[in-house]
């Protein structure tokens, strides 16, 4: 025969047993709900905030790329010619020669120095001599800044004699490797600033080096293979 232990307790305690047990259960459940529920929701809110942030960044990036897709390709050639990827000494010499022809001046004693590495930016010195009238020489020196690749005149010595005006000039040209990778997909992209647009307009006005694409010669049939 089973003994009802509850019946053994004093009646004053019996009336409180069930409510107290239920109160304890309610307390435990409430505690668990607060601890688990709130931590889960907190973590979820953090995830949502991060997702919204990424979404905004992606949305802004997409909008910027959509806006610049028409203009950026037109700037690429200009900027790549201004600071090329590889040593631009030869293309600069070609530019200097073209400028000399335009100014009707003699360009001679051209020498290329060795490449000097910098922090991501290499430079090469080109030294050359000029002969012409004083006006031509000064005008030539002043026009070097309008050539691409961009260069800086390091020094120039102008001498006038009975034969004419001669100048010995050192010009420094720069080059740098192109960026190798794109930024992360969720990394923000900023639009071109007004200052950058002004620089681009200035670079667009530079005289770009003219390159000729040589067509590959088709293989021909040679009548005499030893000729």
């Amino acid at each position: 025969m089973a003994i009802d232990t509850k019946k053994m307790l004093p009646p004053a305690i019996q009336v409180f047993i069930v409510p107290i047990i239920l109160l304890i259960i309610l307390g435990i459940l409430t505690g668990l709900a607060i601890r688990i529920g709130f931590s889960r929701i907190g973590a979820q809110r953090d995830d949502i905030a991060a997702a919204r942030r990424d979404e905004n960044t992606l949305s802004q990036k997409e909008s910027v790329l959509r806006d610049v897709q028409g203009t950026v390709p037109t700037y690429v050639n200009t900027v790549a010619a201004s600071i090329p990827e590889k040593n631009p000494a030869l293309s600069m010499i070609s530019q200097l020669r073209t400028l000399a022809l335009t100014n009707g001046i003699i360009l001679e004693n051209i020498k290329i120095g060795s490449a000097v590495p910098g922090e991501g930016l290499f430079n090469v010195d080109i030294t050359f001599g000029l002969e012409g009238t004083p006006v031509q020489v000064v005008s030539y020196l002043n026009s070097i800044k309008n050539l691409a690749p961009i260069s800086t005149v390091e020094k120039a010595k102008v001498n006038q004699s009975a034969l004419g005006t001669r100048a010995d000039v050192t010009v420094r040209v720069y080059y740098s490797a192109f960026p190798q990778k794109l930024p992360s997909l969720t990394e923000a992209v900023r639009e071109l600033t007004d200052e950058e647009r002004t620089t681009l307009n200035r670079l667009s006005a530079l005289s770009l080096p003219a390159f000729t694409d040589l067509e590959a010669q088709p293989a021909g049939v040679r009548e005499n293979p030893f000729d």
Partner: protein
Amino acid sequence: MAGINLLPTELLPSAGLLKTAKLLKSVLTVGFGIFVVALLGLVGFFAVNALSLRTSTARQEELKNSIKSFEQTEQGLVLVKDRLAKVKEVEGKDSAQNEIDALSNLFGQVPPGVSLSEAVVSKEELDATFVVGDSSVLGQFMAGIIGTEGFTKIDLLSFSFNPNLGYLVSLGFSSK
């Protein structure tokens, strides 16, 4: 049939205790009710947030695909920005460009009877030697030099007279 309680009345809980127990039961009922409602609210909130997270993730995927279709534009933009930064770096370097501009300006202002004999242009300064034919032009030339803008300092490096050439005036122009 009515229940028969054979317990002596002194062993029964007092009316006050019974009332308190009844009140406790009511409080528990309300408490459980609030707990269930709060739990349902919490689950609902969780579900809404999960939906919002899923929507945002789907939108992100959509945007990522769209951005990938602009990959060439992005490459171009990255290149343009990189080159512009390099151009700015080059333009920030010391060069003799200011001095060449100054020489060009100076050359345009030289009056007839004055010629440039020698000019040394460096990053720091421009040293120029002029030949001035006669003293009447000398004053006009010097007045023009003094009025030239863009220099912080003009030094008279040497001044001599050669009977065959005229006056030899060497000037050092500094714009820094």
